């Protein structure tokens, strides 16, 4: 059977942001009547590609053909007119308006300038009925669940222009039955000949719904595959990629320290700790001087788990013991008081304070724990800050420089310094090496190893398996917001082994 000609074809797409190539010669095509998954880790270029397709970004190279004609989108409205509609993760509708109003907003059926409300409601109901959705279209949108809202958004998108539909993480806030409902609708649209581009971090869903998939990594096209022909393990491999070991001297370190930490007292022990909608109840013990790695894909619950241990979010089930005593962490301060530090994965929004200087950013957590009435004397500040700028090789080595002017790697080091000066016993670092250059990455990994040698416990969260394997004594594997397996990092454990767990979810 010959393939139908693609409705959308992108060739050699190149998009450059200052200092980084987000898309480097990427090809992508969508056939009519298919569901096509776009896969890749965070920063792989998925969202950039979508934004190029929807006209949010201009391209720096390559061309886009839609229905055989070359197009050059200069804005989202244009791409919408050409037949490309997008439904984002957060529903972009007005929840205070009715379902019918939401579907027809901006293009209401009119007669002599007057909106024909009756006709509008009738057409909205018909449209939804085609998607097997029989709801009251004159009720406001906020009376319906998020899943229904999402489907209304899809109905609107399809009605506006029915050639290409982009669904960006539509399932991330839906439960299993809602996902099933969404998939029914997607299949129906597919049968109608709509080309659907589907983005999801849930592998099971991708395998359930998609016909073909395209994998991106670091802005480059890895390949286009028939979903049925590509086993999950291979897909994960392609998404994550294998990286050269940057630090060979760390190789056997974990085994070496193993003996030492085995009989150390546990600092922290979680029993059935969990938070509804964020992370299923899990058990976890962290010992002094131990590096515990959290592995899993984005959205697998890594960050959510880490946040519970820092009191950034409150657990709603289970219990937590620190130094053998039951505690409830109600706030980050409570965790800090017990010697826990947490450096967030969102460096820019939850980590650095861009306007403030390197010095101020470094002393912030220590100052916060002392309270505002007991300022750290300036001389002491300079002393500490100078020491850490040297120790972590923060560049430029100017304590009064605004942090926003530093590179990502140096900002990360500033954050590490912020927590190290509080002398924590357990350091939780979430994606410390994401988006930073190889040199800085190696330095940070080395630092983690040294800290652990010095007796500090580290919970190391990273999407990069090589890195987790290199540093951790113990690896916790997460999948679909559940801790599925705990692995001692011994001889037999390698990336393949972890990928298998991530891909299959099998607990062995």
């Amino acid at each position, binding site marked *: 059977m010959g393939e139908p000609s693609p409705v959308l074809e992108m060739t050699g797409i190149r998009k450059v942001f*200052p200092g980084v190539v987000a898309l480097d010669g990427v090809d992508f095509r969508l056939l009519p009547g298919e569901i096509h998954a776009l896969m890749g880790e965070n920063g792989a270029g998925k969202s950039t590609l979508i934004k190029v397709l929807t006209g949010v970004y201009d391209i720096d190279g390559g061309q886009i053909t839609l229905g055989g004609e070359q197009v050059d989108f200069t804005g989202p409205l244009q791409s919408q007119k050409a037949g490309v509609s997008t439904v984002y993760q957060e529903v972009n509708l007005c929840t205070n308006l009715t379902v019918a109003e939401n579907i027809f907003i901006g293009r209401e059926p009119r007669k002599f300038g007057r909106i024909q409300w009756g006709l509008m409601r009738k057409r909205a109901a018909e449209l939804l009925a085609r998607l097997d959705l029989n709801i009251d279209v004159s009720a406001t949108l906020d009376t319906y669940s998020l899943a229904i809202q999402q489907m209304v958004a899809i109905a609107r998108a399809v009605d506006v222009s029915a050639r290409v539909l982009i669904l960006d993480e539509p399932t991330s806030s839906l439960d299993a039955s809602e996902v099933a409902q969404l998939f029914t609708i997607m299949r129906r649209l597919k049968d109608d000949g709509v080309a659907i581009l589907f983005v999801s971090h849930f592998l099971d869903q991708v395998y359930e719904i998609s016909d073909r998939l395209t994998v991106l990594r670091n802005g480059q096209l890895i390949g286009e595959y028939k979903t049925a022909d590509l086993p999950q393990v291979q897909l994960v491999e392609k998404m994550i990629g294998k990286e050269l070991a940057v630090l060979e001297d760390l190789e056997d370190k974990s085994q070496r320290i193993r003996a030492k930490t085995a009989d150390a007292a546990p600092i922290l022990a979680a029993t059935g700790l969990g938070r509804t909608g964020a992370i299923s109840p899990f058990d976890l013990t962290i010992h002094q001087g131990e590096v515990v790695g959290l592995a899993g894909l984005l959205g697998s619950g890594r960050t959510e788990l880490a946040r519970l241990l*820092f009191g950034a979010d409150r657990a709603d089930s289970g219990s937590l013991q620190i130094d053998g005593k039951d505690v409830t962490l109600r706030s*980050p301060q409570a965790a800090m008081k017990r010697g826990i530090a947490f450096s967030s994965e969102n460096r820019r*929004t939850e980590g650095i*304070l861009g*306007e*403030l200087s390197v010095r*101020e950013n470094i002393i912030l957590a220590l100052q916060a724990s002392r309270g*505002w009435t007991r300022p750290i004397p300036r001389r002491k500040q300079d002393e500490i800050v100078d020491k850490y700028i040297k120790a972590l090789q923060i560049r430029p080595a100017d304590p009064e420089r605004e942090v926003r002017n530093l590179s990502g790697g140096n900002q990360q080091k500033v954050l590490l310094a912020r927590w190290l000066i509080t002398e924590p016993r357990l350091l939780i670092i979430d994606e410390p090496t994401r988006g930073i250059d190889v040199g800085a990455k190696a330095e940070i990994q080395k630092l983690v190893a040294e800290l652990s040698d010095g007796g500090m416990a580290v919970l190391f969260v990273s999407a990069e398996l090589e890195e987790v394997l290199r540093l951790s004594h113990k690896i916790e594997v997460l999948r679909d917001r559940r801790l599925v397996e705990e692995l001692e990092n011994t001889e037999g454990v390698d990336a393949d082994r972890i990928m298998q767990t991530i891909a299959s979810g099998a607990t062995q």
Partner: protein
Amino acid sequence: MTIIKHRLFWPSVILVALLVVNMFTANQFITVRDGHLFGVLPDILRGSAPLLLVALGMTLVIATGGIDLSVGAVMAISGAVACLLIKDLGNQNAVGSVLLIMAVAIGASLLLGLWNGTLVAVVGIQPIIATLILMVAGRGVAQLVTDGQIINVQSSPYAAIATGHFLSVPIAFLIAIAAVVLTVLLTRRTALGLLLESVGGSPTASRLAGIRARRITIMVYVVSGGLAGLAGLIYSANIKSADSISAGNLIELDAILAVVIGGTALIGGRFSIAGTVIGAILIQALQVTVVAVGVPSKATLLFKAVIVVALCLSQSTTFRQKVFGRFKSRPAVTAEVPA
């Protein structure tokens, strides 16, 4: 070159320019008469005291990313409470009693600030709405206190805080300067300033750094309330009466303007107390100048608007680049390496 780029350069230039204009137009710019400083300059400094106090509190509130619209109403309540109590004194000139009464009025203002802070930080209402409540209701409270009347007092110690002199300098200005010095000490000698800027810069990041943002937010509204109360006393002492309707009327807008002219961004974060001082005095100088140069009263608001627009443009980087940028080679932009 560097001095021109300083964000307080243009406000300072305009302030000096206004003062120079006054030097030529006023009969007396500054002189000593009856052992007091006398003339336009001391008048400007004296007159700027209430605005300066209010703007000072506003600076801290704005640094946290909030806003306090209730300052005018707090001024009215504070003046009303003070005048009501002074009127009932056996001897209105008893210094001790008057001081005590002023303390009571300021205490009441601090409580009003606590109310604002609680609404914002504990209940979680948006600052503009939370303080709008007191802005509207507060004037009503003040009118209740004064029973809808204007209460006149004949207390020379009370009047002294507005019109008196100490070491030939207007006491009102000295009070304002003392408040400035105290605020600088409070924010820069402790870690409060840093934590404030952190909370204003990013509440999320601050929380994750272990900062008790809630306490700090409440505190700035309390300080703002107290300073507004003090401003209300000076205002009412100046007219020797409590006027619930016009006391501090629209002063919140002038205060916000003073803060913005002083280079503190409305979105919160970095704040500049020195900038606010320049901003407040500049606004007062502008008001005096408008009268002094004989701008027709119909055109005063327009005149003021033109100056303010010019000022804001001078501080806008985009505008400066558009107007002056093309004449010079641009300095290399320190590009941030994206993640």
